[in-house]
């Protein structure tokens, strides 16, 4: 589980280097944002000279799932003091959520689940920072002809494929993907973000369509 996040962190470091970000900004993203897909999306949009509000909105849209995780976990940890809940929120990730919530689903006495949560979240954070730094360093050490930057679309591919679970989600992906290619030369990163929004709407319409049969 922890090893599985390493390539994402490496990709975040590589991507920062590829588009010419400073090491401070690249590593700063991993510390301040600490959410891989949104970091990679932001880097891609910075490279496309996107307007700041577009970058922020896209990244926060990708991270909106954290709100669901927070809603799910919040009641279970409501009795903990703030000195626990603050760091827990900062360390909330797909992995920490998934592993912890599955423990609440079984009948175990949940007394130590905050320790369990930290036991996932804290090492993950450390690995994330090291992997980002390694990616930035490795990208600089390896000749450009290796095209290590291709790591970044491959990482998104590894996220995309399991996200396609049914026909409506396939429609969402197909619409967003083809519009994004078609609009790749639009200014200010508008192509990518509007393609994603159109894909979301297409997915919802497709869901409606197939549920009406």
């Amino acid at each position, binding site marked *: 589980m922890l090893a599985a996040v390493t390539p994402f962190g490496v990709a975040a470091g590589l991507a920062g280097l590829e588009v010419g970000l400073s090491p401070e900004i690249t590593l700063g993203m991993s510390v301040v944002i600490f959410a891989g897909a949104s970091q990679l999306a932001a880097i891609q949009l910075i490279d496309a000279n996107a307007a700041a509000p577009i970058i922020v909105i896209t*990244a926060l849209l990708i*991270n909106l799932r954290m*709100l669901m995780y*927070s809603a799910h976990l919040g009641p279970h940890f409501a009795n903990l003091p703030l000195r626990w*809940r603050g760091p827990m929120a900062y360390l909330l990730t797909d992995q920490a959520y998934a592993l912890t919530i599955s423990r609440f689903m079984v009948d175990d006495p949940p007394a130590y689940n905050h320790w369990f949560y930290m036991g996932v979240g804290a090492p993950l954070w450390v690995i994330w920072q090291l992997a980002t730094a390694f990616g930035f360093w490795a990208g600089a050490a390896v000749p450009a*002809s290796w095209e290590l930057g*291709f790591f970044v679309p491959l990482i998104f591919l590894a996220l*995309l494929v399991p996200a396609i679970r049914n026909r409506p989600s396939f429609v969402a992906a197909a619409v967003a993907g083809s519009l994004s290619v078609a609009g790749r030369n639009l200014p200010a990163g508008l192509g990518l973000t509007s393609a994603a929004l159109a894909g979301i709407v297409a*997915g*919802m319409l497709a869901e409606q369509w197939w549920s009406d049969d």
Partner: protein
Amino acid sequence: MTDPLWLIVLVIGAGTFFWRGAFLVFGGQLTLPNVVRRGLNYVPPAAFAALVLPGLVQFDGATGSVDEARLLAGLVAALVAWRSRSTLWTLAAGMGVLWLMRAFL
């Protein structure tokens, strides 16, 4: 801290912390409207497809033809991702095919 990108990073960081903390720290009680809840299901496929496709389908500036090595590498990697569900195998397949294509074409 002079780089204007810091402002973007900090705003995304603050917003993301707000999502994460909404119920854990701030004790929010809001229930999301149904339409938002449904839309949220399609954020991953739509956003990731919009991010991945332009990286796989790249056009040569002069001739307008598609970079076949990247396209084929992407297709093989997608197949591997689908069958294996493994990030590492996906990366290995994609980079491997890309390097083979570059070496022999």
